[in-house]
């Protein structure tokens, strides 16, 4: 079922990658910042306002009608966004409808998938969905890893997904946009309504470039829906439904900070590192998240900022209650937010003018004329594996299973100081390996690896090594930490059995070239 025996070439990172994926030719990764051919941006078909109701009412009676009007056919590309997270009922409802219409061979182009989408496995099995191009988390990743998907998965970062839409690598036939609030014209936002989820930036490109755009809401308001994260001028049809999903799984009531002492220790090390490296200065910026270590780091850094009277100019969210508190307490001028993780994040985005909604276009896109990620002074990210050259993996585990999406991870590697926060082992599996199972981020972009057993600075960053030379922090070589951990875990793990002739998915670099292949697990 997976791509078999297509021509494989060795890319600039020394990884074998296919030159054709799902019958489409792709270029192999040729290095960070490699020169690109001049092309023009893709564009949607020319439309005329005369085709649309003059009274602005684009409501149709149901999703099926909207899909019919959009000209749904076999083999089309359908996109969705992931901001209903694990509470998303719409995507499952969408494919129920598509299946009932007898349509097959869909390329699903989500901005990410969640465990709730395990429901779609039956449609991957019966051919309703041909393959997924987008982050595959948990059950769908496992399904793909086992070689059961009919086509080959393509994994892109958030910025890479936007880029692929912009340069025409992925042409979206129909975008189906879950909208917590919308009006009959198609203006939509994610900050009000019972399914409020935060910014809708992940659907922005879809709304601008797709042939047809369907907005689906469970909170229909009379025109105008303000603010409009999605502009009705890009929308073909509006559908009202009873419920988009489970609000308790869309955002959490209150984001929990990790209680794991080891993770808190890693967070302490990072905050101290950021201060001692001289990064924590008035007007600085950083990326915040809601992951276990990331949130603990935010709280540690906050204490240090308060103690030293330091204020940030902007913090890139994922917003949480803890981040909005920093805005309220005057520790940052702005939050530039890509997604809200809890109710308080949503509320702040709605009510505080200095809490600003962003999109992958502004934050990450490779085809933007610059983006926010490369302006960040420090970025803290996770990883599943990192090797001695600081190359890192974020999608597969050491046993080869595809279990995570890339998210904005690759895009954030453009930051000025990139720190990977990782436990040195999970269960008995070491995180520092000789060779990463799947290459997602080239080591030249990763500056520091922080574990609970020590901090390794990339030898390329002589400036950081110099600044931290007198530090009380446990600064060690990455090889030293690896050796210690292998002692604990009982040596190096054996190589998992992977079927190297069967590529189940490919990982793109941010520029669209293929950086690595993911193989079927045996």
């Amino acid at each position: 079922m997976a791509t078999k025996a297509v021509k494989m070439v060795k890319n600039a990172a020394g990884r074998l990658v296919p030159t054709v994926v799902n019958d489409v030719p792709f270029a192999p990764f040729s290095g960070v910042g490699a020169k690109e051919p001049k092309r023009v941006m893709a564009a949607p078909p020319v439309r005329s306002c005369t085709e649309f109701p003059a009274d602005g009412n684009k409501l149709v009676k149901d999703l099926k009608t909207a899909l019919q009007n959009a000209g749904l056919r076999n083999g089309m590309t359908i996109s969705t966004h992931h901001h209903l997270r694990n509470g998303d009922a719409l995507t499952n409802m969408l494919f129920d409808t598509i299946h009932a219409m007898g349509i097959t061979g869909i390329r699903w182009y989500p901005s990410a998938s969640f465990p709730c989408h395990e429901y779609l496995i039956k449609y991957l099995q019966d051919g309703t969905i041909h393959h997924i191009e987008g982050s595959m988390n948990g059950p769908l990743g496992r399904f793909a890893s086992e070689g059961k998907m009919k086509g080959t998965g393509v994994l892109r970062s958030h910025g890479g997904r936007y880029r692929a839409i912009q340069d025409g690598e992925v042409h979206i036939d129909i975008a189906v946009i879950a909208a917590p609030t919308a009006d009959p014209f198609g203006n939509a936002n994610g900050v009000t309504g019972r399914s409020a989820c935060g910014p809708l930036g992940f659907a922005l490109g879809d709304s601008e470039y797709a042939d047809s755009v369907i907005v689906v809401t469970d909170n229909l308001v009379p025109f105008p829906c303000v603010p409009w994260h999605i502009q009705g001028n890009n929308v073909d049809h509006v559908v009202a439904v009873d419920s988009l999903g489970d609000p308790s799984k869309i955002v959490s009531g209150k984001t929990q900070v990790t209680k794991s002492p080891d993770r808190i220790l890693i967070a302490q090390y990072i905050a101290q590192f950021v201060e001692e490296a001289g990064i924590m200065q008035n007007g600085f910026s950083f990326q915040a998240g809601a992951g276990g270590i990331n949130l603990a780091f935010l709280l540690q850094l906050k204490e240090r900022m308060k103690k030293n009277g330091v204020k940030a100019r902007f913090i890139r969210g994922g917003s949480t209650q803890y981040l909005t508190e920093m805005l309220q307490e005057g520790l940052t001028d702005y939050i530039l937010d890509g997604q809200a993780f809890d109710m308080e994040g949503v509320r702040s985005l709605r009510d505080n003018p200095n809490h600003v909604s962003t999109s992958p276009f502004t934050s990450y896109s490779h085809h933007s004329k610059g983006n926010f990620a490369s302006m960040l002074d420090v970025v803290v990210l996770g990883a599943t594996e990192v090797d001695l050259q600081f190359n890192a993996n974020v999608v597969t585990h050491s046993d080869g299973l595809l279990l995570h999406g890339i998210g904005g991870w690759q895009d954030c590697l453009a930051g000025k100081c990139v720190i990977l926060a990782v436990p040195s082992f999970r269960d008995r599996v070491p995180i520092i390996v000789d060779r990463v199972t799947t290459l997602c981020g080239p080591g030249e972009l990763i500056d520091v690896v922080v574990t609970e057993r020590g901090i390794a600075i990339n030898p390329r960053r002589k400036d950081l090594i110099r600044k931290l030379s007198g530090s009380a922090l446990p600064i060690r070589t990455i090889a030293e930490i690896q050796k210690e951990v292998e002692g604990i875990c009982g040596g190096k793990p054996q190589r998992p059995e992977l079927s190297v002739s069967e590529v189940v998915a490919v990982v793109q670099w941010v520029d669209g070239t293929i950086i690595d292949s993911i193989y079927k697990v045996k």
Partner: protein
Amino acid sequence: MVSLTTRGGIRIGLKSKVEALYGASIRGQVIGMLEHFGIRNAEVTVTDQGAVPFVIAARLETALLRCGIERSEQTAEGISKKVPVSKKERFRRTRLYLPGNEPHYFLNAGLHKPDGIILDLEDSVAPSEKEAARMLVRNALLNVDFGAAERMVRINQLPLGIDDLQAVIPAGVQTILVPKCESADQLRAIDAEIDRICQQYSMKRTVLLLPIIESALGVVRAFEIAAASPWNCALAIGLEDYTADIGAERTAEGRESLFARSTVINAAKAAGIQALDSVYSNVSDDAGLRASVTEAKALGFEGKGCIHPRQIAIVHEALAPTEKEIEYARKVVDAFHEAKKNGSGVVALGSKMIDAPVVKRAERILAQVNGRR
């Protein structure tokens, strides 16, 4: 689980979270151990969640014990090559309790820098799991790097505690915690058993004792207990059991235990050893912990039990000498050196005479400031 068979060789059924990465290693380890025990035919079922090798070894040995197969004596691997010596007067500001049957807590415990780590065989281990925990703790002492922490084991009450000693003494424990201590005889019996085990394995006795007073009778006999063994390094109080014993509720203010705590402090100091306070059980109440440690310090306690690594830094901070204490200590020590230089036996600070214990206390404070143990 192991069931012995009469033929068919060794058959291993392995279900492991890390099979793709460590399957061969686990099978190899099981076969090696069975060989070591001289077992040729057996059916072994291994259900593994990613345990490290020393844990797998302990689990297999426990399964074998449940089949009636037991080692008579520790083998060479079961004896610590280098028994580290622990000093009686070292700092014991924090001692971190780790349940003996939960080895995933062991691996990183030392990274949080407690003064001592207690591998607990007593209250945190269910009666049915005592053997399993004993083997885990023994293997942990032999295999885990606890950093600079003092390696402590809380044994069970006698007679079960004797079996515990047999396993952990050769494995390199530094200090034995004796729970629910109520008499000097208990400590003498333990001392005798430790001496016997050391002789058996030709080891020099260095293991210290740390009795815990947890009952009304224990409090009454606190001094007798504190002075019972030359190996005693400290006397601790356990308030959960004590308050239950006297029929009072344990409160945040702790008025119900003031008498017991003061008695234990007094007894310890009279016997020339440290006095250590009970644990603070509300893990998420940092302010409450801080207040509790400040009070304990004021009473004369030098340490606090910890049940979560996050408590360690808070206790260390709260026990740290104040600026005023440090300044006074510097003056005392300077005066002492001045007197020594002048050949004078009398140390004076201004018009005040300074006794030897005051000098000793001042030196301890400065050592604490300099981060020495």
